[in-house]
């Protein structure tokens, strides 16, 4: 029999705050985390803004000598994982560590380390490349280091599907518990790619907003004047737990995972398939996973990147899946506030989705000023909305044509 899987711990490092309380307060108050890039001099770049993580003191989470050997994307993951474990109030002395695993997503990995070491090689020669270059840079090191810091000896892997990474990771972690291969899984995503080469690459793709004059208004999903995404960074980490395991220890349950679906566009390296047909199939798969009636969905945390195509096609996909019910949905893109955390986006958006269920509040899409006739659903403009949320669905769509959807449900006994 399929095991039931619940969410029992939340941790995050985000551009709008660290830990679930600060994050939830910011996104329900409509605070933007976007500002001018401070990590490097972006004067020569068409895009000079990003949603950077502020006030991250790594030594609050990781010993200095350990942190030195971690790229920032790994530090964010370990910090987020520790916050999620703390939030779950689980007694790690009492768990079977072989039943405790990790699946994390990251789109890019240790690109800051890559850039630093490449520069060192050019300046000083190949013999000066750090022995820590490879173990800091490789993308699986987030799930590797998290396993080491938590003693998680069970299933462990990494998902790399660009901006869908974290949602795929959560889905895979859910399936691992569902089939009985683990009782506890740390999952979600992490990203730290606000670096000179990375921002330059996204600029060249013309994928990012150039609204440099008003940084906090640049991320405007579903608004007619949207002009690209705003890069964010951080981590969004959840502890998933097999239901009986959670009940036995009296855990607080945020919600139940009741659906995971994924698909490929098989269409283009970066452009979404016309009418969002790939995203549509991911949503249908996720709803079909445990036979969730589409009319029961109350809230969709949209991928909503603020690029012209994504938001239009995602809207078409939602309308195609939900038919007449599409108009009843509360939809929002929290990327309007957090920016786009790429491979970590699905992590913080899963947290937003389960907290919407817990609190009965839908976070808003800020900067929604000018309606677009192509985007004609209820995007929860500018103000959070009180609404009972029994079911929430979260979409993540990535370059390469990866589409992933997860569905959360308010926890009930049966």
């Amino acid at each position: 029999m399929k095991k039931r899987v619940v969410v029992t711990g939340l941790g995050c490092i985000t551009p709008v705050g660290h830990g679930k309380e600060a994050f939830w307060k910011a996104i329900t108050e409509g605070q933007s985390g976007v500002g001018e890039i401070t990590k490097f001099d972006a004067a020569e770049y068409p895009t000079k803004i990003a949603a950077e993580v502020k006030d991250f003191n790594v030594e609050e989470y990781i010993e200095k000598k350990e942190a030195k050997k971690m790229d920032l994307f790994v530090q964010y993951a370990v910090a987020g994982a520790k916050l999620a474990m703390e939030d779950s109030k689980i007694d790690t002395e009492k768990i079977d560590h072989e039943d405790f695993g990790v699946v994390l997503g990251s789109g890019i990995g240790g690109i800051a380390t890559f850039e630093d070491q490449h520069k060192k090689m050019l300046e000083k020669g190949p013999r000066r490349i750090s022995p820590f270059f490879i173990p800091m840079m490789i993308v699986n090191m987030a799930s590797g280091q998290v396993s080491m810091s938590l003693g998680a000896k069970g299933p462990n892997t990494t998902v790399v599907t660009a901006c869908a990474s974290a949602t795929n990771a959560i889905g895979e972690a859910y399936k691992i518990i569902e089939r009985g291969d683990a009782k506890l899984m740390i999952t979600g995503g992490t990203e730290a790619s606000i670096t000179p080469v990375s921002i330059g690459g996204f600029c060249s793709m013309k994928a990012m907003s150039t609204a440099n004059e008003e940084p906090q208004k640049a991320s405007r999903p579903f608004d007619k004047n949207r002009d690209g995404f705003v890069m964010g960074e951080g981590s969004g980490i959840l502890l998933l737990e097999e239901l009986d395991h959670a009940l036995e220890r009296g855990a607080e349950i945020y919600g139940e995972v009741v659906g995971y679906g994924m698909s490929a566009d098989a269409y283009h390296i970066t452009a979404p398939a016309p009418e969002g047909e790939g995203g549509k199939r991911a949503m249908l798969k996720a709803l079909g996973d445990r036979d969730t009636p589409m009319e029961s969905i109350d809230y969709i945390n949209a991928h909503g990147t603020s690029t012209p195509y994504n938001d239009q096609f995602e809207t078409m996909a939602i309308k195609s899946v939900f038919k007449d019910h599409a108009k009843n949905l509360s939809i929002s893109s929290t990327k309007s506030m957090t920016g786009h955390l790429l491979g970590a986006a699905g992590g913080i958006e899963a947290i937003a989705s389960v907290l919407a269920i817990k609190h009965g509040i839908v976070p808003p899409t800020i900067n929604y000023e000018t309606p677009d006739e192509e985007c004609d659903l209820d995007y929860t403009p500018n103000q959070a909305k009180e609404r009972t949320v029994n079911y929430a669905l979260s979409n993540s769509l990535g370059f390469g044509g990866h589409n992933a959807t997860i569905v959360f449900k308010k926890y009930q006994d049966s």
Partner: protein
Amino acid sequence: MTFEKVKEIIVEQLGLEESQEIKRETSLINDLEADSLDAVEIIMAIEDEFGIEIPDEEAEGFKNIGDIVDYVENNK
């Protein structure tokens, strides 16, 4: 002088506290919990600092900090 500089490099590279006791007899691996990658990085930093090349076979023979300091003293 050489000892002080080598000590400073080790403290920096291993992210140690300033108060960490480091003597000539201190072993990187046994006393300071450095692993083989740490050792490679420390040797690199010492090469940079003193403008010398330390061949791998020499570096592998270092038993403690004193050995490193003596090698630097004799070859800089």
